[in-house]
């Protein structure tokens, strides 16, 4: 089946609605949460016929149970994405708290050390790898099964990549195996071992289990890739080791990075069929945020691009005409319109549900406007 030009997809997280957070704690929904819940259901009917719905509306969140509330949260996100017109969807990561701690807790060989400040009064928990990485059990499988059972559009699962998990951890085990002073070369060698071990021992078996459950489209998130551009080869090694011998459509999501610094090394990610990158954030103040796509063309890369057309750090809703303009520029740089998917720059959890919805709707409308300008070469 030929896909229409510029299909839309989400890129990961969605802000959890307040009613989900309140109900997960077992608290009765207050008036505002009830109103939000009813309004959302009027719009997408995500909760119709769900046994937990009656309990929530009757103020009996505890009786509904936290798992049933999370199910409702996942359905809410699925229907929001589908109603907005996305061709690929997930559950807005409705069951996940964040993208580091949960995967690490599914593995052995790590010890959590405590909190590190990211900025101001914001912190994140960090773990040390103290032994060889082993997978306790494949993860995200249950949530994928739920999405697969309920999605009307094609499911696409996001998972944190091996390089990012290693970069956000302390490397003790692999470093300790190296003799003498832990200078730059020694640290790099130890980090390579760590990345490849996570990829082979934890991520690959998880991806294999997901694929066995029917997952066909997987987004590997590597937000840390841009932190150390000189380690782009490690990102690639991790990606290749994690996906070796697996049959699925893999994309790599990187954001807020100088992509040119990662090129051409990153192009060695063999089984990556789509680059899902952030562009809209840098497309302002007279700067063409899409110009970097020229570099892909210069290197002769012909893979799909998940084109960030909406900025997830601003509440301003990009008008559909601006989205269409961004798509046109991407086509100009890439040449082939059939390579382009459209999406937000990154996960939308930084925006309110209302803003996120409007941004997605604008994305879909913008794609429709741009579609009229091009002939689909695959049709």
């Amino acid at each position, binding site marked *: 089946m030929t896909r229409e030009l510029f299909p839309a997809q989400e890129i990961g997280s969605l802000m959890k609605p307040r009613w989900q957070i309140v109900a997960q704690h077992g608290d009765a929904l207050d008036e505002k949460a009830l109103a939000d819940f009813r309004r959302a259901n009027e719009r997408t009917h995500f909760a119709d016929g769900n046994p937990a719905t009656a309990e929530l509306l009757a103020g009996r969140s505890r009786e509904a149970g936290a798992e049933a509330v999370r199910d409702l949260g996942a359905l809410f996100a699925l229907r929001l994405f589908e109603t907005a017109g996305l061709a690929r969807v997930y559950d807005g990561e409705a069951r996940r708290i964040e993208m580091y701690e949960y995967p690490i807790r599914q593995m052995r060989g790590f010890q959590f*050390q*405590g*909190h*590190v*400040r*990211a*900025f*101001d*009064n914001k*912190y*994140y928990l*960090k773990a*040390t790898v103290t032994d060889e990485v082993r997978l306790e059990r494949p993860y995200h499988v249950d949530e994928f099964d739920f999405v697969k059972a309920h999605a009307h559009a094609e499911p696409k699962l996001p998972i944190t990549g091996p390089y990012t998990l290693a*970069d*956000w951890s*302390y*490397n*003790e085990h692999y*470093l*300790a195996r190296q003799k*003498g*002073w*832990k*200078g*730059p*070369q020694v*640290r790099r060698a130890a980090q390579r071992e760590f990345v490849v071990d996570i990829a082979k021992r934890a991520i690959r078996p998880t991806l294999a289990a997901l694929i066995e459950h029917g997952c066909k489209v997987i987004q590997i998130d590597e937000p*840390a890739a841009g*932190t*150390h551009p000189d380690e782009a080869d490690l990102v690639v090694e991790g990606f290749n080791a994690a996906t070796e011998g697996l049959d699925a459509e893999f994309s790599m999501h990187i954001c*807020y990075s100088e992509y040119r610094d990662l090129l051409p090394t990153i192009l060695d990610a063999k089984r990556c069929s789509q680059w899902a990158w952030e562009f809209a954030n840098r497309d302002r103040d007279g700067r063409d945020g899409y110009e970097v796509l020229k570099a892909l063309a210069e290197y002769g890369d012909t893979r799909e691009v998940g084109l960030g057309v909406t900025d997830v750090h601003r509440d301003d809703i990009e008008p559909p005409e601006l989205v269409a303009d961004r798509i046109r520029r991407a086509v100009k740089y890439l040449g082939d319109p059939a390579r382009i998917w459209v999406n937000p720059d990154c996960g939308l959890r930084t925006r309110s549900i209302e803003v996120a919805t409007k941004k997605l709707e604008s994305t879909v409308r913008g794609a429709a406007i741009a579609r009229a300008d091009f002939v689909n070469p695959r049709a």
Partner: protein
Amino acid sequence: MEVRIGLTGPFPRSEAIVAATRDLDRGRTTAEAVEELYARTEAEVVALEQRLGFDAVTAGYLRWPDLFRPFAETWEGFTVGPLTRWFETNTFYRQPILHEPPVRVAGAIAKRLPPTTLAAPERAGVILPGPYTFAGLLENRSGETEEALVHRLGRLLAEETKELAGRGITTFQFTEPLLVDQPPERSIAEAVVAAYKSVQAAAGGASTVVWTYGADANLAFPLLDRLPVSAVGVDLAETDWEAIPAFPERRGLGLGIVDPRTTLVEDAGDIVRIVKGLQARRKISELWLGPGGSLDLLPWEPATRKLHVLPAARQALLHDHGGRP
């Protein structure tokens, strides 16, 4: 050779401060309660620094949101800008935006220092941004060239140094990761040298240290060796120590031997071997040992554990020199 040890940047916040500041942001505790916790924790950091035999105590700079914020919030000409990544780390600072040539406000930074600093200045170390890193990492809308800005910030930091030295502070550290990340050239390099001339003159008899980290310092050594300060420090986890160039004159050298990017504790024996190797090429008048980068890349407990290598390395070096410094 004298061996000095101490912190070279902020110490991590304790888990109790993490919880309290989160609660403060959520309206679950009071500013007074958090303030009291800061004071108690600073006293703990000072006690740790003293127990480990550090030559200057800092109290950990637990309250500073980032290296520049106290300046951006108190000196004239600045506003506080967007979150920006701090070099190759997963931590961020708010980029100062400079709208007009900066003006120092006397006494403003002193008020932001940990209270223990000015209560016992003779044993206190003060950690300030270096002029090159400050100039390079702010957003400059002032109309001044980078060179002029380095000169100006050098003069202002010299005034700050003079004020604090006048209040009894005896050790000043200037944090300069940008010097090794993007070593300056030509006129800007000259501006950096001039800035530190101003600082050194203002310090009177106090020690002045330029501390770099985050990248291999070897490309920057021609400049680092020209800086008129008591010592320059380099990050040994990032710097190939065997490539550090020879230098014929006696001068201070700092080695960042505690790597905040791993919880693995360093081996004092390795450090002795490195110092001996360096002494064959450089005449080291004073050796400063400390963390290679911001120790707050680690949580409180592993940071505390790792610091014990500093007195152990000093002891091993003294033992290696027959018990004499």
